[in-house]
């Protein structure tokens, strides 16, 4: 139901004059409220804060060229993709993907940074099913590059497991996913993962400090609140999302603890993403739209492409 309310709000914004011009006639308070209406603004703010925290507090190897090439390549790819498909360009989604890649991808090669952005955004235009892209853009780019190149990797230990960071991520991540109506995915994922590591600890007879340490992992929480929660690549219905999140947790846990590969959840998301269309078939519900997108008619009949749709096409 939360989705529907978001939709109505979205439709209102979408009929107003497009672009920055609509802000000119608005009082400041309205501009601020308009800015806060779009969950992407929350995401961009939160992810940028994490990038700054990573660069300056945690001293990740985050060279400026990496940040710039991630941002440049995602935004440029989106621009080209929108031009080809005739959609209105919107830099916000590629910016979110760019920040996620900046945070997670480690590489010493500018070419791989650039490639990450192109693969991420390119996948949105190429791998689609019924007008919805299949893979979380940043996620698929990370996995392809980490598997294909020795010089690209993910550092799951980079955030450590400090309690204060876990609490902060819970707070900020909770607010962001609430805004995008995807807190259910994050919580279902974390609850399932917690159940699995707790069950493992109980079976092994390990002290509770071990699963607690595993759950405090900054990398796990960043994944839960900023990657799996992408409204565009999660199932449309809430029940489907909860089941899907649990599935990602099970696959991720298996990769981590049975195959002994780090960053298991990141691989799990790519492996399970192709199942999302099946979930959408099994549990029909209306799709998520960003506030500036016009809601697509539910029917599957050929419809003219509504203007203002950023990266959803209508399946003909």
């Amino acid at each position: 139901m939360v989705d529907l309310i978001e939709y109505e709000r979205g439709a209102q914004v979408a009929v107003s004059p497009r672009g920055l011009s609509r802000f000119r006639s608005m009082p400041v308070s309205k501009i601020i409220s308009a800015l806060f209406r779009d969950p992407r603004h929350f995401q961009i703010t939160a992810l940028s804060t994490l990038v700054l925290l990573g660069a300056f507090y945690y001293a990740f190897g985050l060279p400026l060229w990496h940040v710039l090439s991630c941002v440049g390549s995602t935004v440029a790819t989106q621009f080209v993709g929108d031009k080809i498909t005739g959609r209105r360009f919107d830099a916000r989604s590629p910016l979110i993907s760019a920040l996620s890649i900046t945070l997670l991808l480690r590489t010493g090669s500018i070419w791989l940074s650039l490639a990450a952005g192109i693969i991420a955004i390119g996948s949105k235009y190429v791998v689609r099913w019924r007008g919805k892209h299949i893979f979380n853009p940043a996620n698929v780019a990370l996995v392809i590059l980490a598997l294909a190149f020795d010089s690209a990797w993910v550092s799951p230990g980079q955030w450590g497991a400090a309690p204060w960071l876990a609490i902060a991520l819970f707070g900020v991540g909770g607010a962001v996913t609430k805004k995008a109506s995807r807190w259910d995915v994050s919580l279902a994922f974390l609850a399932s993962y917690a159940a699995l590591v707790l069950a493992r600890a109980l079976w092994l007879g390990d002290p509770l400090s071990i699963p607690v340490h595993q759950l405090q992992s900054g990398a796990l929480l960043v994944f839960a609140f900023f990657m799996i929660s992408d409204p565009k690549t999660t199932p449309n219905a809430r029940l489907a999302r909860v089941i899907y999140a649990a599935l990602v947790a099970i696959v991720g846990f298996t990769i981590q603890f049975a195959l002994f590969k780090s960053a298991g959840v990141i691989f799990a998301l790519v492996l399970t993403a192709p199942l999302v269309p099946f979930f959408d078939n099994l549990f029909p519900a209306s799709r998520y739209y960003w506030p500036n997108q016009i809601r697509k008619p539910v029917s599957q009949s050929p419809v003219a492409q509504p203007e203002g749709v950023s990266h959803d096409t209508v399946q003909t």
Partner: protein
Amino acid sequence: MILSKLKTALTGGVAMSMLAVGAPAAAFCGFYVAKADTDMFNDSSRVVMTRDGDRTVITMASDYEGDPTEFAMVIPVPTIVTKDQVHVSDVTLLDHLDAYTAPRLVEYHDGNPCVSDEYMKRDRLDMAPPVVAMGSSIESEAAYLGVTIEESFTVGEYDILILSARESSGLQTWLTSNGYKIPPAANRILDSYIKQDMKFFVAKINLEEQAKSGGEMLRPIAVAFESPKFMLPIRLGTVNSKGSQDMFVYALTRNGRVETTNYRTTKIPTDVNLPVFVEDDFDSVYPAMFTKAIDREGGSGVVMEYAWDMNWCDPCAADPLSVAQLRELGAFWVGDDGDMQRGGVKGQARDVFVTRLHVRYDAQSFPEDLKFQTTGNKENFQGRYVMQKPYDGSMDCKAADRYKKTVNRRQETEISTLANLTGWSKTEIRGKIDASGKGKKFDIDSGSGERWWDDIWGNKK
């Protein structure tokens, strides 16, 4: 100048590297003075992990110096290992690797400020700090207790058993009845390892063999195995420990740096200028600096002290390991074919990247075993501390006044840096400087010195 310093370093009993001798570029990273080797840390253990793909060789060195009859070790291992997979190594290899990777103290010497060219050159050096990116009855008892002796053999001075077990109490009973002292609290941990399908590598000293080898020190044991698990079991070691323990992990890989995946790997502060008295006090300065770095992470942590391509070093605390030494440590991929010229030094190219991780751990902050991954990061990193030594000859010129002021300011900054890095107070540091007599400030007669306005209207004396 270079030669005289080189001589000082050599007479100081320090092995200068091939590179430092051959290539003038070495001076750019400073002249090696001292290193922080593992002797500075009591009760520390050393482990070399050589890994490529799933192939792993772990070489463990014990600093055990007690009665050999009392020595025993129980190490969980991911797979069963046979006699061929176990090897007794040489402790000097580990010492060499330790020296090569140790955080290092280097020095630069200021030139005579009265020799203008020299001064200009040194001035540039000052302005651009030298930061460089740079198994019978035993068996039947075992079977009764659910313990299987998978392998039993003697290698060097060690009698080794590879055990698998069905449950921990049987294993514990068996170990205890066979003379291994296992603390009761270890029971749950053993149980956890059994359920994770780990085997147990159990070693005791064979006194006859030890007498034959004539050695007093226990030699390191190397074990080769193939497993997707890239980890080090530390939990058994934390059971009876009173406080935190130090462990040095030297990881040798083909691809690049090794980092922990379930703990944060941080870097030791590096490339900072420190007061010159540190030269005599590095073995108290570095441990204090390490402790302070660890405190920032909550009193425990994984700290990277060195990460470097094994083909060179700059400055060198010890020569890079030879191909033969690397192969002895398990770097199976390093070929012994084809000599290559590299870095102006005759020798083979060593496709090995070394990462030195210094881990300070206790049960509370390290509840889980250490898990690692190899990354593609080949960026070199070293813990390097610089002493910029002031010119100590006679100076009789105008430039000398300015130089002395610069040095005095620089020394203040160095004291602040040291205070910040070690947690020592500035008063304490000044006390140390006075006691050592090194790095004292220049006396400057404020009345006769050059004032800032002297320069602008040309009314110089």
